[in-house]
């Protein structure tokens, strides 16, 4: 019996573990290391209508138990992703979640309409939360009315279920979650990175060329857990949780707080085999917890 399978809108997951968007490219590099069919799903790098060259370098800086990044959504653009990356991924038996980004509603709608027709794209992840692009992105992610309207428009054209990726850079994350749920979102993915800065010790100047960057890695996990916990109580759509996952206990924590599946971002850079390792380690962890199927722990923090 598979003790790890999870069913979510559009997604038949062998297990609840998937690499997070932007930390796995389009899978090619990690495919040199292990069989991608092992993964529950793959969240591919953000795709925009036109290719984007991204921000100047340095784009990354290390912080205590974390890192800042300001990649700037560099990607080869919709045409190339449709013509080269997605067909290449078809050799693997793994559902793809396409991360959709843009600076205008039209951009999002265009990418969503086209990318949702790819046979292996089983769900979209609307990235309304990238802190590293000057326009769009984050404004969609901080204003509940704007976010709801965007989701409605994308839902109207998408052939597959739409998940919305929430930004933690808001005062009230529950309000954002509720807004996208009303807009018709099929699920929520959370959290994206937290806006941060690091200064050069000698000059006092920002280390990242973009000045600010998004904080990720183990350092952000307590915030992510808190947000998943709060959102789970107030919405009825499923959550894919992420933010600092580095070990199997973190997976259990996210699922206990209310996530139905878990994405791993930054730790793929530290241990490129982390996803398959977590998948292999989960059954023993379930034994330890005395549960038969991983579903049983979803939301257990909230039980009386």
């Amino acid at each position, binding site marked *: 019996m598979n003790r790890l399978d999870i069913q979510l809108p559009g997604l038949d997951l062998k297990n609840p573990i998937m690499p997070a968007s932007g930390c796995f490219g389009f899978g090619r590099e990690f495919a040199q290391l292990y069989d991608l069919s092992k993964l529950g799903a793959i969240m591919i790098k953000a795709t925009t209508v036109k290719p984007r060259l991204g921000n100047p370098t340095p784009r*990354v800086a290390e912080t205590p138990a974390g890192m800042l990044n300001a990649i700037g959504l560099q990607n080869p653009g919709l045409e190339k992703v449709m013509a080269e990356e997605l067909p290449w991924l078809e050799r693997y038996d793994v559902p793809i979640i396409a991360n959709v980004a843009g600076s205008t509603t039209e951009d999002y709608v265009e990418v969503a309409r086209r990318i949702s027709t790819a046979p292996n794209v089983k769900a979209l992840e609307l990235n309304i939360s990238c802190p590293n692009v000057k326009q769009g992105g984050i404004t969609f992610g901080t204003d509940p009315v704007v976010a709801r309207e965007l989701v409605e428009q994308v839902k109207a054209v998408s052939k597959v279920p739409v998940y919305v990726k929430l930004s933690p850079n808001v005062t009230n994350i529950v309000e954002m979650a509720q807004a996208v749920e009303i807009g018709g979102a099929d699920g929520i993915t959370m959290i994206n990175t937290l806006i941060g800065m690091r200064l050069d010790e000698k000059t006092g100047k920002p280390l990242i060329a973009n000045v600010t960057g998004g904080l990720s890695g183990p350092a952000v996990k307590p915030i992510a857990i808190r947000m998943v916990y709060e959102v789970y109580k107030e919405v009825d759509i499923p959550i894919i949780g992420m933010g600092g996952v580095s070990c199997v206990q973190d997976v259990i924590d996210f699922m206990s707080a209310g996530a139905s599946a878990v994405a791993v971002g930054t730790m793929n850079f530290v241990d490129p085999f982390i996803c398959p390792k977590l998948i292999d380690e989960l059954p023993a962890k379930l034994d330890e917890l005395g549960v038969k199927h991983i579903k049983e722990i979803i939301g257990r923090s909230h039980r009386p």
Partner: protein
Amino acid sequence: MIQQERMTVVRQREIAKNIFEMTLQGQIVQEMTPGQFVHIRVSNLLDPLLRRPISIASIQKDSNEFTVIYRVQGRGTNVLSQKQIGDEVDVLGPLGNGFPVDAVQEGQTALLVGGGIGVPPLYELSKQLNDRGVRTIHVFGFQTEEACFYEEEFTKLGETYYVTNDGSKGFKGFVTDLLNELKPDFDVFYSCGPLPMLRALSSMYENKKGYLSLEERMGCGIGACFACICRTEEGQEKDYVKICSDGPVFEKGVVKI
């Protein structure tokens, strides 16, 4: 093929001020070529978090050993310098594309120009070029005498010149100052070091064939995260390259530096 391996420290010593030479043993040595690098996780803890990119300085395939030479810069390299013989180190590699040793023929001359901590990858390169019957000239720039290393090793392989900014060892000034006086006769140059040096060399030897090893801040080290991007010069096939997986070595004129 890229692999992750827990390699064993077989030697570690300080060879100049804050400069360490560490030799590691393991299977992935068999796959290494000069100019490639490894990505080292210095601790199993979550801080320091990211791997550190370090060049391969020499390869001993018969004993499954390779050597890195690194400067203690910040937390990561400091932790690395504390490793004792017998300790295990988590190594991902070999990564990237190294120096093309076959860009120069037997009987020809290669000029190897290094700056500071850019010198190490030139050592394995020089060994392999000499093995192929190529004459090598080495010109290395350092801040000061205390930071210089491997003089004996390089001198065994070919003509070797040291340049220091303060004149405490060898010629005083920059490597390009010495090269202007030396006017060496060579067929191909290979270089690794600070950007201003690479820029100066590229314009000085505009009509020569040359290869440059570049550096950039990295996330993954394998081409997946888009952290280490550099724009290319006009007329190249692609608008950008990834230093980690397309480089770190590029032919002169490919990358905008």
